[in-house]
């Protein structure tokens, strides 16, 4: 039955009014509730805008690249089975170099388990790699002890990168590159077979004689053969001030194919629990200073005096540090030629929130931690951490690999925390540690990818596709396809290695440089400082000696130029002090620059 129109309209209006009143009432109630519970702030509070962030994606391509292999862990003396997951938590290392001088970056990748082969992935130049370790003679390095790190360096300046292998409980190995795709083990003749329990090594010319020397960071004491223990008292004796680690080694290159350990003589035989070693000219002296990332206590800074000696300036330069240093890397974030230092430590909410360091170089011989200020302190149980400009916009990103032991659902942190905070417990004895069993310890942690936004950094790992939950260790940044964009090779502990292709949406301009030292400079030009002026801004980089936990990145340098189409100048300060400048370098390509032939 039809209703009169007027009546119908008035009812509609009434319903509408009731509806509106109800809506209003509901809104008021919801707002009331929200204001009581601060939902509004939490919803609309401070969500970061992603619009201004660099737009790139990282795509995992290890299978396509034919590099899909898995790291094998060490299995040590059964007396310490209760802590075996802890003990076997390192060894996944990766080191990049063009070992065959074909213009393509190759990589050595470790495995650590007994008789597990290591890998030398030769870059085929077509997006794939071939494991040639067997033919090269550097595959079988785990018959005794276990491989922990590897670093390339042309110690004899013959133009072919040689390879040094750091091992636990067996002599380290030095392989000379024969220039024909094979290597010769010259450990004995070179006297570089230190038998310790090291985790790090770098090649650098500490005394300016043009020859690369070798610094080795050691962890457990050398008298402890971890496969045949005479004692279970092998651990650090303090969680914050341990100084009972293996002494570090500095092999001076004698220039005749032999080396001499001068660490004790020069006072750089630090007995902190060194996990990584880095070197860079921190004070614009022209000499490379040493930074030791030490576990369970104070990191150490040795200033290079320029006369073949060092001074331990830690007490003056750094605040007291009781953290768990794992990795060290350098970058000039301000274009002033004074590098800042990024050091990874541990962050575990609810247990131990130390935070990573970003040591701002105060230019007066001291450093201040700016990591909390910049938002790059909290990442996880952090390992390999590197500065990198992934999209060549001229701003450094920071990548941090995280995760200690990813195992069962149980969490060892409570036992670890209880042990660490129990006074007077003899913690250096492995038998006093609660059994770990199948428990995880900061497991399944995602990596962090910090990008700069205004005056802070934010973590965009998820958005960028860096989403795996493996226990990352060594992080290698290398431009495998020579497109001016570094890829990421991640050595995961006991897990598949990964190769991330870097795919920015916006292709910025860049300039790539490979240096060859001559005269009194080492041929790899390690330590050379490059300063580019472009668009009214200075950018400074150094040729790196292999800084970064269990890793060595592409030694070539890439300067991101953003939208700039040319540089105004490039100045090179070579390791021997010579300065050369040039300005006429086409961009968006690599240049090989030889010392003495640069200045126009």
């Amino acid at each position, binding site marked *: 039955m039809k209703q009169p129109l007027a009546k119908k309209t008035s009812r509609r209006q009434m319903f509408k009014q009731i509806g509106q009143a*109800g809506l209003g*009432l509901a809104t008021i109630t919801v707002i009331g509730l929200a204001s009581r519970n601060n939902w509004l702030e939490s919803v609309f509070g401070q969500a970061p805008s992603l619009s201004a962030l660099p737009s790139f994606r990282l795509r995992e391509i290890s299978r396509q690249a034919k590099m899909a292999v898995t790291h094998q862990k060490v299995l040590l003396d059964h007396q310490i089975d209760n802590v075996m997951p802890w003990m076997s938590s390192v060894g996944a290392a990766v080191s990049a170099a063009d070992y065959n001088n074909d213009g393509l970056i190759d990589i050595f990748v470790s495995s650590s388990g007994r008789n597990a082969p290591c890998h030398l992935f030769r870059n085929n130049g077509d997006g794939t790699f071939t494991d040639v370790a067997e033919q090269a003679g550097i595959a079988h390095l785990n018959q005794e002890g276990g491989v922990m790190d590897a670093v390339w360096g042309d110690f004899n300046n013959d133009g072919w990168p040689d390879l040094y292998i750091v091992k636990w409980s067996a002599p380290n190995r030095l392989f000379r590159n024969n220039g024909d795709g094979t290597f010769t083990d010259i450990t004995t003749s070179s006297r570089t077979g230190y038998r310790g329990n090291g985790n790090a090594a770098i090649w650098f010319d500490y005394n300016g004689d043009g020859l690369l020397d070798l610094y080795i960071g050691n962890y457990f004491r050398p008298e402890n053969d971890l496969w045949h223990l005479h004692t279970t008292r092998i651990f650090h004796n303090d969680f914050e001030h341990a100084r009972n680690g293996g002494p570090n080694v500095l092999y001076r290159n004698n220039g005749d194919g032999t080396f001499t350990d001068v660490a004790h003589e020069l006072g750089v035989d630090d007995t902190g629990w060194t996990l990584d070693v880095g070197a860079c000219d921190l004070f614009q002296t022209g000499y490379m200073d040493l930074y030791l990332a030490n576990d369970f206590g104070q990191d150490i800074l040795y200033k290079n005096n320029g006369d073949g000696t060092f001074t331990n300036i830690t007490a003056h330069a750094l605040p007291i540090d009781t953290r768990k240093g794992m990795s060290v890397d350098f970058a000039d974030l301000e274009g002033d030629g004074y590098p800042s230092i990024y050091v990874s430590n541990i962050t575990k909410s609810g247990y131990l929130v*130390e935070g990573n360091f970003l040591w701002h170089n105060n230019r007066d011989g001291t450093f201040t931690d700016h990591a909390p200020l910049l938002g790059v302190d909290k990442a996880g149980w952090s390992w390999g951490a590197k500065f990198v400009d992934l999209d060549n916009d001229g701003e450094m990103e920071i990548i941090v690999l995280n995760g200690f032991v990813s195992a069962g659902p149980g969490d060892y942190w409570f036992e670890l925390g209880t042990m660490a905070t129990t006074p007077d417990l003899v913690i250096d004895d492995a038998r006093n540690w609660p059994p770990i069993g199948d428990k995880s310890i900061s497991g399944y942690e995602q990596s962090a990818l910090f990008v700069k936004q205004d005056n802070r950094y934010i973590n965009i790992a998820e958005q960028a596709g860096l989403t795996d939950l493996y226990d990352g260790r060594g992080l290698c940044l290398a431009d495998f396809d020579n497109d001016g964009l570094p890829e990421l090779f991640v050595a995961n502990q006991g897990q598949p290695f990964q190769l991330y292709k870097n795919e920015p949406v916006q292709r910025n301009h860049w300039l790539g440089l490979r240096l060859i030292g001559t005269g009194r400079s080492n041929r790899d030009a390690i330590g050379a400082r490059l300063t580019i002026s472009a668009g009214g801004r200075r950018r400074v980089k150094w040729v790196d000696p292999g800084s970064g936990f269990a890793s060595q990145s592409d030694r070539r340098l890439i300067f991101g130029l953003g939208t700039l189409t040319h540089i105004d100048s490039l100045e090179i300060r070579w390791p021997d002090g010579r300065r050369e400048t040039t300005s006429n370098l086409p961009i968006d390509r690599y240049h090989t620059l030889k010392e003495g032939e640069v200045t126009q």
Partner: protein
Amino acid sequence: MRLTSSDRKISLPSIPSASSKRRSRLLLAVWLLLLMPMLLLLVSGVYLFLRPRVQALSLPRLPAHLTESDLGLANWHEYQQPLPPQPLSDPHLPATPQVDSSLALLEDAAGQALLTTGQVERGLAYLQAAAQSDPENLRYNNDYRVALRDHQRYTTEYTYFSQLAQHTHSPNVLIGLALTYVDQMRSCPTPPDGLVCQAQESSRSISILDTVLAAHPYNVVARFARGLNHLYWPNLMGHLPLAQVDLQYAVALSKLPSAMSSAFAPQAYMALGDVFAKDGQVEKARNVWLNGKAVVSDSSMLDSRLAIATNQLVNEENGPLRGLGVFVDTSLAIFWKTGR
């Protein structure tokens, strides 16, 4: 006269038919259906705004007839004696510190006065004499300990109290030693460094207070000190529930009629609320503080807690509110001082 249908519509009174009655009922039902949720919303909104904001706390039941000694408050009145106003010019003050219980209050006052004039060594000597004259006296022990702490004499502090504890196992002496360990935390590296160092000192403090509370479970000073110790630990180390128990006791004990200073109650409520805040239970935290306000209405420290936005309370583990590395003021004067 015949009526047309249109005339009928105009002139006849409207008599509801059965179908129109059904329509009316239907309309009413629709109305009610529409109005009910709105009424419910209105009622719930009104309830939310008008409901009681303070809910009673769950506190442990205390035995009847607890004595002041049970609470650790024996001789409390002595602690509340005012200090002599001009101790340094008092003719009874010995030229050199004397271990004499009749001079203890004067020497305590003199020690504090000397410290304010920068005469640290003399000041500490008088304070030590006062403490030694009555090792059981919480006040003199406290004044000496806090002075040592404030002058970073942590080793002296530890030596004095550990030696005292070797001879005397009274609760007050042990409490002094336990707090010495808390003071030692200040000698650890600056957080977030030195967290293990701090935690180990806290562990030592807690184990001594465990001993005290095993024998004297209602000692309010020990309860509060142990509760605070637990409160500062990282959340996942499992100390928060222990802190909650101790601080619930502290609040319950603060409500007993005693000689205790009214300055303590807000501290107890604040700390108990902080337990919940640190655990992310924001409403419970606020409820505790509101309970405290009901007891001590003019407490500025509770006001300041209540002024913190709830979203800022959620993750306080690493923040300044009982966060890792925040140093505790171990002075026990809050138990006997006047004012809030």
